[in-house]
């Protein structure tokens, strides 16, 4: 019995730590998105990053967690009873409150990714609504497929350790669809000699953006390692304990981040003549996103390679989406989360060689195929639901802030805040 208490306490503590760290990623997202956009929308984007967590926490508790982890109906959806609206005493259902907290902060991460790509021009009301819908069903249902032991993708052997696919590639896909339907910020593209040309709209505070990246990195040391869910498994021998796995996850996670950012650094240096600050920062995130699915089952060397490729994907991806597709993504969320997230899922199929998974490099094609299938399913689900929601909002004229408001800035027009930095520019009462 004592064994049970100790492992229960230590494993729960592990979820607590992970949950707290992942929670703090909200601050990271808020700072990155604020720093990389303009001063006139600073209050608005901060607010959005807060609101998705507010609504997400509540709705995920009410119904999302149940949809995701409730008794499965054919591997497609959980029945949200029992897990629905959890309201029992602390001592009743072992572990579930800890798990609810841990899963809530993951859910909120998915929702928050979208705000960056659609920044500086989305109607606040529309934001509130679609961020609510993401936490209500888009994320939980797909989450059920992958992370519930009975989910159909999970049963197929699909592996997405900490959510490159579920959290990031879905978030990135939603961001892509949203940004595409929403259209670019005024002034982002102009027609020169009949060709659409992209204009730079630099962010207003790279320092706070960099702080955001550091906070996200910090949080990722909860996101990935704590996804072992446990440190101790009393049914396993001492040399196969999950805490050993968690230790490796720290290394693969960090190496991939470093490799990706280093790649972005030197790649932009070569390509643009100067080592680009904001791209290097995006590189960190690209590496983190890219390793998230496979951090448990690849070797450190593979994590380095995964990171290097993520660093190239993010640099070329941001450029491509902006200058070729002409889709305006102020913070690079689509490339960072969408492309690198998809890459991360595929990378499992290529590099897996530990923790019971075998990818292409061990001669196994099966896993690779499953990963490909799973990723296509996730993207399709996010793209489809996103398309319906954003399109509906758009045709009803509800999605986009009006032109005048966008030009003036959403702080003043949507929140009555003349400026998030009012006192730098004195404002007076009648």
């Amino acid at each position: 019995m004592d064994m049970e208490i100790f492992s229960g306490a230590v494993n729960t503590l592990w979820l607590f730590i992970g949950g707290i760290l992942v929670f703090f990623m909200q601050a990271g997202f808020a700072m990155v998105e604020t720093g990389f956009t303009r001063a006139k929308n600073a209050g608005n984007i901060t607010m959005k990053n807060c609101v998705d967590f507010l609504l997400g926490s509540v709705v995920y508790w009410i119904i999302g967690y149940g949809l995701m982890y409730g008794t499965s109906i054919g591997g497609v959806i959980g029945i949200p009873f029992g897990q629905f609206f959890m309201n029992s005493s602390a001592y009743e259902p072992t572990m579930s409150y800890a798990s609810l907290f841990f899963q809530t902060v993951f859910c909120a991460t998915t929702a928050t990714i979208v705000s960056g790509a659609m920044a500086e021009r989305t109607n606040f009301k529309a934001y509130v609504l679609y961020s609510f819908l993401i936490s209500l069903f888009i994320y939980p249902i797909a989450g059920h497929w992958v992370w519930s032991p009975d989910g159909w993708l999970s049963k197929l052997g699909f592996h997405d350790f900490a959510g490159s696919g579920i959290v990031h590639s879905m978030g990135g896909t939603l961001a892509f669809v949203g940004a595409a339907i929403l259209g670019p910020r005024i002034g982002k593209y102009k027609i020169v000699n009949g060709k659409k040309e992209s204009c730079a709209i630099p962010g207003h505070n790279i320092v706070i953006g960099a702080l955001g990246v550091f906070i996200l990195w910090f949080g990722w040391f909860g996101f990935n390692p704590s996804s072992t869910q446990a440190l101790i498994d009393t049914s396993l021998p001492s040399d196969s304990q999950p805490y050993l796995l968690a230790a490796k996850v720290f290394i693969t996670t960090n190496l991939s981040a470093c490799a990706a950012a280093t790649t972005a650094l030197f790649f932009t240096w070569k390509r643009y003549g100067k080592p680009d600050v904001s791209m290097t920062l995006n590189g960190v995130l690209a590496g983190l996103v890219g390793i998230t699915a496979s951090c448990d089952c690849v070797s450190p060397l593979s994590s380095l390679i995964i990171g290097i490729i993520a660093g190239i994907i993010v640099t070329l991806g941001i450029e491509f989406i902006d200058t070729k597709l002409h889709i305006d993504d102020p913070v690079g969320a689509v490339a960072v989360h969408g492309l690198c997230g998809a890459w991360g899922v595929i990378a499992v199929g290529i590099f897996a060689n530990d923790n019971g998974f075998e990818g292409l490099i061990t001669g196994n094609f099966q896993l690779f195929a499953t990963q490909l299938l799973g990723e296509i399913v996730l993207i399709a689900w996010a793209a489809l639901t996103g398309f319906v929601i954003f399109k509906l909002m758009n045709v009803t004229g509800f999605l986009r802030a009006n032109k005048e408001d966008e030009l003036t800035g959403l702080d003043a027009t949507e929140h009555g805040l003349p400026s998030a930095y009012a006192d730098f520019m004195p404002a007076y009462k009648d």
Partner: protein
Amino acid sequence: MPEMTKVEIITRQSKLEELKTALNEIGITGMTVTNVLGYGQQKGQKQKYRGVDYSVDLLPKVKVEMVVCAIPVQQVVDVAVKTLRTGEIGDGKIFVSPVTRVIKVRTGEEDEKAL
């Protein structure tokens, strides 16, 4: 000596880019831009800050100054009016005033040649 004149345009920040391009086209190659706060008929929206009424009557504007000589002032004014007019309060004002001398520091050239 042809007369030298300073033209000072105060207008919306969001119009700066367009104005710059338009002036460039008529041959204005130098100007100085300042971020200012404008007080005029246009008022900020009535806002609430933490429950307190609060109206902003100093609005962010830009001031564009250029000294011209060869290019007729009337042309500058016409271009500016054309570019800036929206018909709504806050379009801005243009002030014209005399300048007696201009020196280009780099070359020491004066007046017309300095511009």
